[in-house]
Every structure is written in C-alpha cells, then in structure tokens.
C-alpha cells in the first residue's frame, strides 16, 4: 500500500525568502515520487520527479527536492520565493512500471507576501 502525508496545509513566506514544503510517504514498493503544482483554476503541472536515480532532484522554476529513504521524506525547497510561486502543491507517490496509479497528498497552499 502507498500513502502520502503533507505535513502543512498552509505555508506563508515573504518574497525572497526560502520555501520548505514537507512531505512524508509510505510505500510497500520502491516508490516514484513527484511534486505537482496547481495554480487557481488550472490543471496540474509537474515540478519534479524522483525515480530511483539521484536522491537530490532538481525541477523547474528553481525548485528541488531530496529523497531520504531513512526518513521516508521528500521535502520540496526553493531558495528564494517569488510571487508567482503562490499556488497549491501536491506531493505524489506512484509505482514504477506496469499499470500505475498516483496517490496524492492533501496539498499545501503556499502564500507569498511582498
């Protein structure tokens, strides 16, 4: 079985300060992990993915995440927040290969203040 827990439902930061969105996962299999972003009234956009290669994954728009197996975590970070980063972020776990479904966390709403 697989599950995802996003530890914060809301995160608020000032523009130019670091962003940390926390995610813990549970998986009976070697997981694939993703972060997706959803802007208001939009679909989901893939930020980055971990698929058992490098544990530090770099994504679009300056985001990165580190896979820590011992802590079952996959936290999303960005050194400096921009106003356009304000959105809903989803941590997602899947399984490599075959017919795969994605399990989404409940989401973290990121607010960025000037």
């Amino acid at each position: 079985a697989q599950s995802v827990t996003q530890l914060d439902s809301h995160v608020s930061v000032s523009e130019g300060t670091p962003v940390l969105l926390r995610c813990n996962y549970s998986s009976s299999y070697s997981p694939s992990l993703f972060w997706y972003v959803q802007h208001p009234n939009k679909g989901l956009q893939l930020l980055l993915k971990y698929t058992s290669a490098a544990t530090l994954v770099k994504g679009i728009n300056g985001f990165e995440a580190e896979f820590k197996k011992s802590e079952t975590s996959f936290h999303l970070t960005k050194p400096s927040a921009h106003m356009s980063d304000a959105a809903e972020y989803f941590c997602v776990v899947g399984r490599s290969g075959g017919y795969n479904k994605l399990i989404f966390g409940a989401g973290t709403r990121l607010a960025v203040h000037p």
Partner: protein
Amino acid sequence: DAGVTQSPTHLIKTRGQQVTLRCSPKSGHDTVSWYQQALGQGPQFIFQYYEEEERQRGNFPDRFSGHQFPNYSSELNVNALLLGDSALYLCASSLVGRANYGYTFGSGTRLTVV
C-alpha cells in the same frame, strides 16, 4: 506538441442526470487515467485505461464508468449524479510501463451538480 485536452471545461447538471466527459491524451501516450478532485482536496484516482480496457480502479461506485477508443482518447461517464459528484475531473496520460516518467494532466472539467 499538444498536451492533454479535456472537454468541456465547465458543466452544470441536475441530480439524477448522466454526464460524459472527454479526454484526448498527449501525443505518443497510450494510457489514460481519470481523477476526481473535490474542492480543497487532492485528486483521487478513479480508473485507468490501456488498450481499451479498464486496468485499475479506485474506490468509486459503478456509477462511474469509462471507455477508451482505438485512438487512445477516453470518456468518463457518471450516471445518477449526486450533489457530491461536484468536483474537478482531471484526465492524465502516460506511457504504459513508463509512468515513473510522470503523467501529463489536462486542465480538467469542472462539474457542478445542482
């Protein structure tokens, strides 16, 4: 390169009616999955189609059914609509066995049941 296309973008239906939502996958993808995203929640997996057959199903009643056509496009049908079916319905496409590469999501269909 066209991404995932969903139609219609918005829909209002009355309780008890039936609805059909449509999805065209990203060029080169052969697998289509459907997700339901209720307001303020993460997307929930409904089912997945490959080679015109349902391959996996989430915890949704039989009122939810689907179809995949030879050109890989897909339909989601919901019968006997309930108020609780109001949600954003997302279609995602991928390549079978390559789901760890990430899914491509459409912008969704916003269904409102009144």
